[in-house]
Every structure is written in C-alpha cells, then in structure tokens.
C-alpha cells in the first residue's frame, strides 16, 4: 500500500493539424494533491474539467506535460502502467465475453503466471467482498449492469494494487442500483484499505464516499478538503454552488447600514437579511457582493414571525421533503422543509433567513469574502 503525491502537474493536448501558433489551453494546470496511504479521495468537477485526464496520467495512460506523480515514494512519470501497481475500474466494464466471471477476475493473475491454486484462493477471497460469489460460473452477457460493475471492481482489486483508480464506476447504473453499489464500494474500501482515487461529476457520490474531495474546474484545483470542509466552508462561489443539492442560493446583494448592524438587500425585493456581525470590518453601506445561503438555512416563520412576507412561487411536494421557491428579484430562492404543511403558488409565507449561516462572495471573481 502507498499514498499518492501529485506535484505541479500540467497537461496540454497537442494540436492536430491546426495552426502551430494557436496552442490549446492546459487541460490540467498546476495541480497539487496528496492522498495519504489508505485514503479515499474524489476528483470532482463538471465534464471537461480535467479530472479524468489527471486519473489517466496517474494510471500511465496519458503522457504528462509537466510535473511529477509519485506513488508511495516512487516517481512514476516514466514507468509503464503495468509497473505502477495500480488497479483500474472504469465506467465501461470491458469484460471478455467468452470467459466466465471467474476467468475474467482471474485473467490478470493468469497472464502474470501466478499458479492455479493461488489464483483460486484469491478469486474466492475477493468474490464475497464484491458479492459476486454466486456469479462466478456465469457469462458476462447474463449479468445486470450492477453485477458487471461488481465483477469489474473485483478484477481491479485482485492484483492487490497499491493504488485503486476508479473513473465514474456508477454512472452507467440506474438510481437504485447506483445507491446500493455506492454503499458496497464504501464497505469494500473500508475492508481492503487501499488508497483510492475516484473520479466523478456527481457531488453526491463524492460527498458520500470520499475522505477528501478535490474540486476541479477548467483544469484548476479549486479546493481540496473533507466533505464537511467543502460543504461548510467553500472557498468560492463555484465550490459553494457545486456542492450540495439543491445548490446553495446565491444572490446579488447591496449591503445597507441599519442602526448598529448591516443588512443584505436585493433589487426588486423587500427581503432584508441581517449580515453577521463578524463581517462589520469588511462591509460598508452600499457594498455590492453576492450572498450565499443553503436552502436548509432558509426557514418558514410561525404566525408571530418577524420575517418578511413573501409569495410562494413554486411548491414541490417530494414525499420525503418539500421544496419551496420564492422570487427574490430575478432569482428563485429555494428552501427545504420536512414540515407536512402543503402550500400552493401564490400563498404568503413568512420568510426567515439564518443570517449567521450566510456566505459572502466577490461579485467579479466569485472568491469568498471572509471576515
């Protein structure tokens, strides 16, 4: 087992057949990441952000333009993929159709010339971990998507890799199978304690699985931290709106002085939200910025609430919870409630926003404004 260290990693794809003078932008720009031994890290970002490219460079499937990748203490930049001691599981299962599940799992060990008794021992060890012991005699065509991905992961870990690399292993599966498989991956990693890099565009998967999340946008690392850190303390507007579902409400605001404190005000709305006192040194009357608040921190007041009266624009009853949308200027401010009350569009509610839970972001750069 070993950790992973990525230092000043760059990737630029060469132009094919275009003018030499026009260069592509970097797909990955100055990426630094450390995964301690046994840690599960997620690379998270929208499609095209460079997360898969990073994984592929780590696996040795893609050349490194600049920078260094270490697995344990070994610089692997120039090592052949087979010498990197990695296990790979991709979105596509790519199994050998004429071979049984058993032979598919055993394939890599056979290719390496491991003796039969040892192979059998290891297949029978791995199979129950991935709950595919009943499937060993089946052919791949007989398997469901979830079962195929199970076999695929079993195949990746049978070599006892130092580093397990997974690229969107759940994105082919439908809702229920995905949820079940997510739990199984979590159990598996806990059992085998293998350093793991997991690529996904789904913040939910990253939040639920990873010890640490690296959020990447346009090839640049935005934030690297535990799920709680990126959720509670986002460094910028991008991270704030990417993590969490429904996403954080982000509204343009003008701050106004009101007696001994400040309030957020919004164009085209009477809503006023108290600015936390800790920001008193960074804001002033007329200061423009963006305010972020999570839907959980917007509440409906009771009959004697001092909150602002607002009209319900959308009411969605989702069974487990209910979501309400309120127009604040041109933006729909969302809130979530477990309460059983049913509303309809046009109803008036008292809106209370937990001011102390708000975040401030720079209007131009989106960077977090801190007290």
């Amino acid at each position, binding site marked *: 087992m070993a950790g992973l260290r990525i230092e000043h990693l760059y990737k630029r794809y060469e132009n094919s057949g275009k003018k030499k003078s026009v260069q592509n932008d970097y797909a990955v720009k100055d990426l630094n990441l450390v995964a301690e031994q046994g840690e599960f890290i997620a690379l998270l970002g929208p499609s095209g952000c460079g997360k898969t490219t990073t994984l592929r460079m780590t696996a040795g499937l893609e050349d490194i333009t600049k920078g260094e990748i270490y697995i344990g203490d070994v610089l692997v930049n120039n090592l052949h993929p087979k010498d990197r001691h990695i296990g790979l599981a991709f979105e596509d299962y790519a199994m050998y159709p004429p071979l049984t599940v058993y032979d598919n799992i055993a394939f890599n060990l056979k290719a390496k010339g491991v003796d039969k008794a040892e192979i059998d021992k290891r297949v029978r060890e791995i199979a129950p971990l991935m709950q595919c012991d009943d499937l060993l005699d089946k052919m791949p065509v007989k398997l469901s998507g979830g079962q195929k991905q199970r076999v695929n992961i079993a195949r990746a870990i049978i070599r006892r890799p130092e580093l397990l690399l997974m690229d969107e292993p759940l994105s082919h599966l439908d*809702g229920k199978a995905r949820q079940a498989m997510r*739990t199984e991956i979590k159990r598996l990693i806990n059992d085998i304690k293998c350093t793991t890099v997991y690529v996904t565009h*789904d913040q939910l998967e990253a*939040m639920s699985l990873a010890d640490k999340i690296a959020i990447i946008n346009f090839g640049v690392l935005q934030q690297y931290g535990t799920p709680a850190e990126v959720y509670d303390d986002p460094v910028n507007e991008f991270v704030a709106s990417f993590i*969490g579902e429904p996403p954080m409400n982000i509204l343009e605001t003008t701050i106004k002085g009101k007696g001994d404190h400040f309030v957020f005000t919004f164009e085209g709305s009477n809503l006023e939200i108290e600015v936390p006192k800790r920001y008193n040194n960074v804001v002033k009357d007329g200061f423009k910025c963006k305010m972020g608040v999570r839907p959980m921190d917007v509440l409906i007041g009771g009959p004697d609430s001092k909150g602002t009266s607002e009209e319900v624009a959308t009411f969605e*009853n989702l069974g*487990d919870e209910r979501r309400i949308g309120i127009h604040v200027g041109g933006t*729909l401010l969302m809130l979530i409630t477990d309460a059983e009350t049913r509303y309809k*569009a046009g109803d008036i509610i008292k809106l209370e926003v937990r001011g102390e839970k708000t975040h401030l972001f720079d209007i131009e750069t989106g960077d977090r404004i801190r007290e």
Partner: protein
Amino acid sequence: MSRIQLENVTKKFGKVTALDGVTLDIKDKEFFVLFGPAGAGKTTILNCIAGIQIPEEGVVKFDGEVVNLVDAAHRDTAMVFENYALYPQMTVYDNMASPLRSNLYKKDEEYIKNKIQEIAEMMKMDYLLQRLPSQLSNGQKQRVAMGRALVRSPRVYLMDEPLAHLDAKLRNAMRTELKEIQANFGTTSIYVTHDFMEAMSLGDRIAIVNEGHIVQIGTGDEIYYMPCNEFVAQLMGDPEINIIGGTLAKSAKGYTFTMNAGGKAYELPADADLFAKFDEVGLEKVEMGMRPQHLKYSFEPKEGYLKCSVYSYESIGNKSVIVAEMGELQLRMIAPNGLTVKIDQDVYVDMKLEHAMFFNADTKEYVTRYNEAEIKSFAIRED
C-alpha cells in the same frame, strides 16, 4: 377539452407483451405522470396515445371518441422527447416555428412571432432565439424542445422523460422551473419519468406502471403514504423505505409486533382503525414499512433500542444516511451530516411506530397504516 382514455389496451411486440390490459382515464387539463422502472411500458402507453403504435386490443379515446384508426399526424398531439430532436441547421426561433409552419397547423408569420415570443419569455429563453442548437447547453436544448411543443395548442402534450438526459443538479433545477410554468399549460399533459421526485412534484395524479400493468393511480401523497404494495413503497422515497418482517399477535392493550430478526416484540401504539383492520384481516405474518426519517438512533445504549452495527454512513447532501445491520436485517435511517461514525461500530435503533404501514408478508400488498383516515383526508382528491 381533452379527456384521454385508454380502455383495456394490450400491445405486443412479437412474443413480448409490452402492455397488458391498461386502463386509464386522464381528465381534461390534468398533468398526469406515468412513473415506473425502465422497461415498464410507460413509453409504449405514450406512443399508443400519440398514434405511433397501434394496440392489438382495447381502445384509445380522445374526448370519448375512439382514435385507434386516426393516424399520428391527425391526432393533434405535441411530443417532447428525451433526446431533444432539434433541427441542427435551424436557429432556435426556426426550430420553435417549425410546427406552426407545417402544412397541417399552418399559421401566419405574425402569429408565429408573437407566439414564440410569449413562450420564450415564459421559459426564460428569449435571449437564445437566434442561436443554433450546437451553441446550446443540454439544459437549453431541452428548453427549446419543450418550447417547440408549447407553441402549439394541441389536444394533449406528451412528454417522454424530457429531463432524463440532464445531470442531477440541472434536472432538479429544470423540474422546479417546469413546476413554475406548468400552471400556464392549460392543456392535458402526460409526462413519462422514472424519477420519483419528478413524479411527486409535477403530477396532479401519478400512475405507477410495472411490467405492462398499471399498479396504482393516485395523487403523490396517496402513493407515498398509502402505496398499494411494497414495490410501490420502495419506488417512492430515497433512501428506500425499510421493510421489516414480523408477526402480529393480540395483546391486552391491542397488538404486538414481533420482529423476525432478533425477535424483539413491540407493543403497537393504539389506533382504533388500525386494530380494527387487523381484527378484520386476522393476519399473523406481516411486513412493516418504515420510512428512514422515522427511525431514531443513538450511539449509547438506550432503553428499548435495538443493538445494531453500522454497515455504512454516507452523506446525501444536506443530510446523511446510516445503514444499521442486525443479522440479515438492514435498516436505513436519516442522520445529520458531519457525525463521526465508524463502520462496524455499535448503533442503537428505535422506531417511531406511529408512522408504520403494514403489508401482507405473502402477497406484499398493503394492509393498513397509522392515521389512515387523516391521510386519506388530505391525500385523496375527488374532483
């Protein structure tokens, strides 16, 4: 006026029966959702209404008139597909204008311009009108595809998983937007989805479809609180409802429920209607349905709590799910984010029994639940 009815519709593809005696009565101006797993037959129902497929048996009626023999072009429906199906060489404006320029529904250009402007504003896409489809994001493409259907005033809008292609975040945002403009449709709409949140949010009523059959029809609340069987209960809600097998027995105060796993007996809280129903059906073997938000946990031993171990702890956004394990039984429950929970550590679990629903252990069909009368009063709409 457009009331859409299917009576005993059966559709076969070779030896495969895709629809088996489907009967539906969709009211004028209703937003009706067809919900079920992949391959259930939802799209086939839609295609039979559109006239793209002709049922072997049964009739499709529009406002009481049988349309089986009317071809698709003359049924006056407007469809929205999952894969947008936009003309790539045309601007958004021309894509939206295309149905109104067809021979069948021809309108003059002045009318077209006003109509497109109206719909584009409603869907907040007026700034996109001069773009080509290749210059649009997936969310924008779906908006155009929907806008193109809405420019017409057909007898019925048919929407086949219009949001399924989008990623989770965008899908949720678009669903809320659709909810907001839905009131302006003023036309019967039939919406196919496999996402329970879309079904719950959008549907005036929902039909649950499985293996070519209609399993249950009702409002979202009705289906969520009084699912007709365990299959439906498991479709609605994420994380999935807990199904706990056990035995009912009469006690001095009413009834006890003894769990199969571990054998713990619970004295069921009093509910006269519930106990009357138990008396009437005389069941012993039942399965109790408990939604994850109705389980309580503690990391310290507590009086009356079941000792389990943590199978997993996962954040699901604004909250987390603990899966607790006791022998064969796994229990899912909701917990806040940011707890320090170790896999395989002890956890103690209790249930808010006053939210339980009960199913027949053999047939898996709904028997009764707590507060059934109260739930019926707000869940079932008669109009």
